[in-house]
C-alpha cells in the first residue's frame, strides 16, 4: 500500500475558491424558490426533503409511543380506553416501520451520499428518485388519512383473520403501505443501477465505501421482497372488503398462509432497516478511529450474506403457529447464520479501532451505543432462534425489547450518528459538540432504561399488545415508561441544538473530521453537480488513513 494518499482530489484540478464562487453555488442556494425544491432532480435536495419528512414521521411515531407508554403506567385504564390504545400501538408500529425506519437512512443519507461516494453527478434515474419521494408521501397521506378517519387496531403485523374482520378502517392504511412499498422498490432499483453504472473511474467494486455496499445489499432486498408485501397487503384489503376467502378459514382460506407471506417480506425487511445502519457505522468507525476498516471484504460480504440468508429465516416468527417441527428446525439453523454474519461485522468494527486514533466525537458516541445494542439485540435474536426458548418468549415483551434493541436501537444510533457525522457536509454548519455528547448519553441511557425492563417483563410472561395487565407487572412497566421519558428528553435536546446550528452554526470546512471517505472530496455543502471542476481521481481504497492528508478541498458557499 502506498504510504502517500492519492484518494484526495487532484490538487491542481481544484479551482481557486473565489473562482468557483460565482459559477458553482452550493446546492442549498442554487435556486431558492419553493418550486426549485419541490421539483428538484438533485439527489441532494431530494435527500434533504426525505430527511425533513422522516423526521416528521419519527415525531408522529414517537408521540404514539409516549401515549402507549403512558397508558401502561398503571395496570388498569390510565389515560385512554382499550380501543384507542389498540389503535395507538398499531399506528406507532406502522408509522415507525413504514414511514421512518425503512425510508430514513436510504432516503435521506443514501440519496445524499451514494452519488458523492461513487464520484457520480447524480443517481441513475433522477426523476424516479423524485417520484419515489412523492410515492412515499402519497402513501403517507393515505395512511394518515385512514388513521384520522377511524384508525386500525391490528398491530403492524396485520395478522389475518383479525385484520379481515375488524371493523376499523384497514383498507386505506394498508393501501398506503402498499404505495409506500413502491417508493421503497423505486429507491432500491435506483441505487442498484447507480452502483452498477455510475462509479467514477477508479472505483472498483472493492474500492466502494462500505456504506455503498450496505445500501446495495439493502436495495437488493427491497427490490426482491417488497413486491411480496404489496401482494399480501392487497389480498388483505380484498379479503377485508370483498371477503375473497384466501386467508379466512370460514371460506376455505388459510390464516397461516398470511403469516408465511407476511414474514417472507417482513423478516428481510428488518434487514432493510438494519443494513443501512451497519453501513453508516462502518463509515463512522473508520473516520473517528482514523483507520482502515479491519476486514473490509468480510464486512462487505457479510452484508450480502445477511441479505441472502435473511430470505430463508422467516419461519422463526412462526415456531408456535403449528408449523411442523422439522420446519422449525430448518428455520432455526438458518437464523443462526444471520447471527454469525452480524458477529463478523461486530468483530471487524472493534478490530478497526485497534491501533487507531480515536476521536470521541458525538457520532462515535452513537457508535458505542450501536455496538452494544447490536451485540445485545443480536444475541437475544439468536436466543430466540433457539426454538425451545422462543416458546415462552414469543409474542411477549421480550420480543418487543429484542426488536427495539436491534432494529430501533441500531437504526436510531445510526440515524443520529449519520445526522451528526454528515451534518457539516449537508448543511455546511457545525453543531455544539458538548450538547451532542450530552444528548447521545441521554438517548442511550433512556433507551436502556426503556427496554431492559421489557426483556424482564417478557421473562415474567407479560404478553405484548396488552392494554391492561396483571398487577405483578407494574414495577417494570413504570420503569420502562420512565426510561421512555428520558429518551424523549434526549431527542428534544438534539432537536434544539441541531436547529440552532442550522441557523447560527459556524461555517464548517469541507472536511472537518479529516475523513478519507470519498464524499468529503468536495465542498461542504457540495455544489449542485457535486464536484467543482473535474471529478477527483480515486486510486486507493476508501477508509485508508496511511500517510498524511494531502490536499484540502475548497470551501463552498
Amino acid at each position: 500500500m502506498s504510504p502517500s494518499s492519492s484518494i484526495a482530489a487532484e490538487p491542481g484540478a481544484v479551482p481557486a475558491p473565489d473562482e468557483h464562487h460565482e459559477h458553482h453555488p452550493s446546492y442549498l442556494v442554487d435556486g431558492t424558490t419553493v418550486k426549485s425544491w419541490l421539483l428538484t432532480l438533485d439527489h441532494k435536495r431530494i435527500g434533504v426533503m426525505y430527511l425533513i419528512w422522516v423526521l416528521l414521521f419519527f415525531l408522529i411515531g414517537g408521540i404514539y409511543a409516549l401515549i402507549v407508554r403512558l397508558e401502561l403506567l398503571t395496570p388498569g385504564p390510565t389515560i385512554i380506553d382499550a380501543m384507542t390504545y389498540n389503535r395507538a400501538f398499531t399506528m406507532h408500529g406502522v408509522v415507525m416501520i413504514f414511514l421512518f425506519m425503512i425510508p430514513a437512512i436510504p432516503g435521506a443519507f443514501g440519496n445524499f451520499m451514494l452519488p458523492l461516494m461513487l464520484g457520480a453527478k447524480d443517481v441513475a434515474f433522477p426523476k424516479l428518485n423524485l417520484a419515489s419521494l412523492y410515492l412515499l408521501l402519497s402513501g403517507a397521506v393515505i395512511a394518515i388519512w385512514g388513521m384520522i378517519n377511524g384508525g386500525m387496531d391490528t398491530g403492524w403485523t396485520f395478522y389475518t383473520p383479525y385484520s379481515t374482520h375488524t371493523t376499523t378502517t384497514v383498507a386505506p392504511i394498508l393501501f398506503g403501505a402498499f404505495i409506500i412499498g413502491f417508493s421503497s422498490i423505486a429507491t432500491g432499483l435506483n441505487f442498484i443501477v447507480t452502483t452498477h453504472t455510475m462509479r467514477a473511474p477508479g472505483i472498483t467494486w472493492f474500492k466502494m465505501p462500505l456504506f455503498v455496499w450496505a445500501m446495495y445489499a439493502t436495495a437488493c432486498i427491497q427490490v426482491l421482497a417488497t413486491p411480496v408485501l404489496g401482494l399480501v397487503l392487497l389480498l388483505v384489503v380484498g379479503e377485508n372488503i370483498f371477503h375473497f376467502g384466501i386467508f379466512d378459514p370460514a371460506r376455505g382460506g388459510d390464516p397461516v398462509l398470511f403469516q408465511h407471506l407476511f414474514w417472507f417480506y417482513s423478516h428481510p425487511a428488518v434487514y432493510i432497516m438494519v443494513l443501512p445502519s451497519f453501513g453508516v457505522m462502518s463509515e463512522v468507525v473508520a473516520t473517528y478511529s482514523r483507520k482502515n476498516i479491519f476486514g473490509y471484504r468480510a464486512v462487505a460480504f457479510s452484508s450480502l450474506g445477511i441479505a441472502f440468508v435473511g430470505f430463508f429465516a422467516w419461519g422463526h416468527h412462526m415456531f408456535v403457529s403449528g408449523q411442523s417441527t422439522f420446519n422449525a428446525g430448518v428455520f432455526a439453523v438458518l437464523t443462526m447464520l444471520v447471527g454469525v454474519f452480524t458477529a463478523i461485522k461486530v468483530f471487524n468494527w472493534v478490530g478497526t479501532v485497534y491501533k487507531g486514533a480515536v476521536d470521541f466525537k458525538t457520532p462515535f458516541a452513537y457508535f458505542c451505543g450501536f455496538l452494544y445494542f447490536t451485540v445485545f439485540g443480536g444475541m437475544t435474536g439468536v436466543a430466540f432462534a433457539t426454538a425451545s426458548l422462543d416458546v415462552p418468549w414469543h409474542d411477549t415483551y421480550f420480543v418487543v425489547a429484542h426488536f427495539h434493541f436491534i432494529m430501533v436501537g441500531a437504526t436510531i444510533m445510526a440515524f443520529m450518528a449519520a445526522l451528526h457525522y454528515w451534518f457539516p457536509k449537508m448543511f455546511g454548519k457545525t453543531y455544539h459538540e458538548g450538547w451532542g455528547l450530552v444528548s447521545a448519553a441521554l438517548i442511550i441511557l433512556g433507551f436502556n432504561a426503556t427496554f431492559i425492563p421489557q426483556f424482564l417483563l417478557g421473562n415474567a410472561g407479560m404478553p405484548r399488545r396488552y392494554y391492561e395487565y396483571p398487577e405483578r407487572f407494574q414495577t417494570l412497566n413504570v420503569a420502562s415508561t420512565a426510561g421512555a421519558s428520558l429518551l424523549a428528553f434526549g431527542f428534544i435536546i438534539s432537536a434544539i441544538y441541531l436547529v440552532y446550528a442550522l441557523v447560527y452554526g459556524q461555517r464548517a470546512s469541507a472536511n472537518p473530521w479529516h475523513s478519507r471517505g470519498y464524499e468529503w472530496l468536495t465542498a461542504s455543502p457540495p455544489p449542485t453537480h457535486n464536484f467543482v471542476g473535474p471529478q477527483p481521481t480515486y486510486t486507493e481504497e476508501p477508509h485508508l488513513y496511511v500517510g498524511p492528508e494531502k490536499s484540502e478541498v475548497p470551501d463552498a458557499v
Partner: protein
Amino acid sequence: MNELLNNILFLPERASTFAERVDHLHYFVVGVTMLMSFAVGTTAIFFFFRYRRRSDTQTTEYVVPSVKTEFLFVSLPLLFFLTWFVIGFRDFVFVSTPPKDSMDVYVMGKQWMWKFSYPEGPNGVNVLHVPANRPVRLLLTSRDVIHSFFVPSFRIKMDAVPGRYTQTWFEATKPGTYQILCTEYCGLSHSKMLGEVVVLSPEEWDAWVKEQRKGSLQNRQDALADLSLVPQPARMAEQGQKVAAEVGCFKCHTVNGEPHIGPTFLGMYGKQETLQDGLSLRVDEAYITQSMMDPGAHLAAGFPNVMPTFQGKLTGPQTAAIVEYIKTLRTPDIRTGASSQGPVYEPIQ
C-alpha cells in the same frame, strides 16, 4: 441457585417438566450472551482509551486481519450458536411431541375467553382442571381469530388458529393455580382474555371427576368463575352472549346463519323480516326485545310459535345485553369446525 437466577431474571415459578428444561438452557444462553457482550464491550472500551487520538495529524498503520483471525470470527459464534440450536431443538421436539398416554383436552379460543372440553364430558370456561404428574395434551382451535394459549409457569405456548387444530402438551409438576394468558392480539379485550389452570393432586382430581359425573358442573363452574381471575366481561355484547347461553337461546337459535327451530341470530339485526301475516318489518332493538318478552306478537314467517316468553326471567340489563350481542352478529362470521353455540355448561350424560 436456580431460585436466585429466576429472581434476577424475573422468571415465574416453574410448574411443568418442560419449564426445567427451558430454564436451564435460558441460563446458559443468557450467561453466554452476557459474557460475550462483556468481552466485546471491554475490548472496545480498552481500545477507545488505549488508541485515543493524540494529535490532529496522527496517521495510523494499515492493519488487516489474518485468515486465522477471520476464521476465529466466524467459527467462535457459530460454535456457540449451533450448541444452543442443538439443545434448543431437542427440547423443542420434546414439547412438540406429546406422550402416547397423555390425557386429551380440547381448547377453543374465542373472543375473549377460553373454553375447555374433555372428551368424556364436562366443559368449562376459563378454568382448566388437570391432574398433576400426568401428561395432558391440548388440542387447540379458535372460533374467530387467532389466539395463543400461554401458561408462563409451564413455559408453554401454542397458537389457536381458526379452521385447524394445533397441539401442545405439558405435565404439571405441582398442584396449584396458574395463569393462562392470550398472547396473540385478538381484538378489543385481548388483554382480558385470561384464565387459569387448576392443577389438582391425584386424589383431588379423582374427586373432581366424580363430582362432574354427578352433574353438578354448572354450579361448580359458576362458583369457580366468581373466584377466578376472569374479569367482568368487557362489553355488553360479551355479557349478552353469556346470558343467551345460560337462558337457553341457543337451543333454538344458531349464530352461524343456519335456521334451526327459530331464525338464526346471524345477520338478524337490521334486516327486513317477513312475518307470518305477510307484513314485513325491520329488525331493530324494539323488535328483538318484543320477541323475547312476547314471542307470539310478530311471528317470523316459516317458524312455529314455540318460543317461551322470557318476561320476568331476564332483567333489563340482561335483555339489553342480549340485544347488543345480536347486534354484533352482523358480519358473515361463519366458522366451521366449532360448535355454533355459546359457552354452555352441560352435565355429563
